[in-house]
């Protein structure tokens, strides 16, 4: 069955000046600032955590969006394995890079939140732990890409690794949750208390806009890099009469 990339399917173009993307980025930034202000103003101090609770307005949306990024990686990988178009590979790689940053941010903030709250730097909370596993899967994905030189091979391998990683995320989450309930550890901060929902949701959406902006920007840069490489290829092929 093996699907092979044929050169015709790989025509890459980068259209436009990218200015509309920059406007979108500005909108995303404004949305983020607005959402943060909204969250800080509309939520009272939490009974246990006090103002520390506000950190969750970045930590939780960052977590949601890290998983969103991984979802993009999974879909783009599937598209690549199915259709073989290089742009899907580039999209997956861009989403993975941005997703890694968001995941790292989630973990750092989770740790910072945990220290004053529980007195420890890490809680084996299922969501935080799944995020840590996601981080490792991202790192593995990016390491694989950096160790493979042939573009086709790199794209095929990354797509397979990305998809299998995506398959595993829900399984990891379930496993860790069962594991935790078995050993009856501390409970997690609630994300559904009505007073906090508005703040969390609006920041979730704002951060989603930021995520999309970064992924598209990275994707555009990746396509431009490949376009330059393709042009160099054509030049090399045409300048062959040296014998």
């Amino acid at each position: 069955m093996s699907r092979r990339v044929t050169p015709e399917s790989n025509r890459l173009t980068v259209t436009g000046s990218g200015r509309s993307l920059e406007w979108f980025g500005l909108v995303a930034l404004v949305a983020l600032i607005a959402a943060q202000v909204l969250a800080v103003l509309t939520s009272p101090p939490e009974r246990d955590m006090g103002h520390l609770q506000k950190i969750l307005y970045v930590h939780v949306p960052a977590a949601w969006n890290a998983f969103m990024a991984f979802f993009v990686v999974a879909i783009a990988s599937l598209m690549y394995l199915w259709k073989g178009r290089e742009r899907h590979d580039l999209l997956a790689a861009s989403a993975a890079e941005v997703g890694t940053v968001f995941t790292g941010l989630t973990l750092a903030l989770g740790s910072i939140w945990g220290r004053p709250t529980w007195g420890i730097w890490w809680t084996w909370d299922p969501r935080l732990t799944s995020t840590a596993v996601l981080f490792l899967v991202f790192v593995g994905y990016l390491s694989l890409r950096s160790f493979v030189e042939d573009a086709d091979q790199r794209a095929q391998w990354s797509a397979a690794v990305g998809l299998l990683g995506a398959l595993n995320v829900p399984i990891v989450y379930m496993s860790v949750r069962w594991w935790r309930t078995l050993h009856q550890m501390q409970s997690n901060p609630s994300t559904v208390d009505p007073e906090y929902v508005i703040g969390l949701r609006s920041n979730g959406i704002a951060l989603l806009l930021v995520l999309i902006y970064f992924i598209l920007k990275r994707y555009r840069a990746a396509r431009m890099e490949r376009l330059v490489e393709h042009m160099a290829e054509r030049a090399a092929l045409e300048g062959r009469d040296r014998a």
Partner: protein
Amino acid sequence: MNTSEHSALKLEGLARRFGVRWALRGVTLEVRPGEVVGIMGHNGSGKSTLLRVIATVLRPSAGDGWVFGNHLVRNAVDVRRHIGFLAHSPGLYEDLTAAENLRFAAQMFGVAESGIPFVLERVGLGNAQDERVRGFSAGMQRRLALARLILGSPKLLLLDEPYNNFDAQGIQLVNEVIQEARRGRGGALVVLHDRRQGEHVLDRVAELGHGVVVGVSAGATPLSLVSAGGMTH
């Protein structure tokens, strides 16, 4: 697929790169059924890469190729059924015996194992069949690799410097196999660095330079610089 309608091998602008280096930059070549074509060129001219792309070991970066009408990329599985590839390194399992290597090959090819003793005798390894390949000389390993090739009954032979490491008997053996392919209306593409080695079997010789065909000559006579091949897009 009715092989008598198609060339044994047809290449159009075949190109392959490794990173930024282009090993093949547009090879156009045809091998008619029953024809034996030699490939010559300096080191780095792309001879081995060309064979490996045709053998579907590597995928072309650009251009097209067909083996008996089967496209190298789209019908790779069918291409493999028609070819026999003798590479630089023999690619044998050193901890298995000669007979075990061939038995494995027979099972993978899906052919009967009963032909193995005969093939081993033919390549002169009848006495060594139960010895591990690890102890074989380079020449013996090549003979075994040739035996494996024969076992697959290929129509198009792809031979990368087949005369290396061979004594006179070995060279004769290679030529016999090539003649059989010719008689079966198959074909052969033979990479060599000395045209005298293929004196008696070659119909034509194509010279590769910097990844393209720079000249084709008939038989083993000195090269006439007829420009053949190049980029089609």
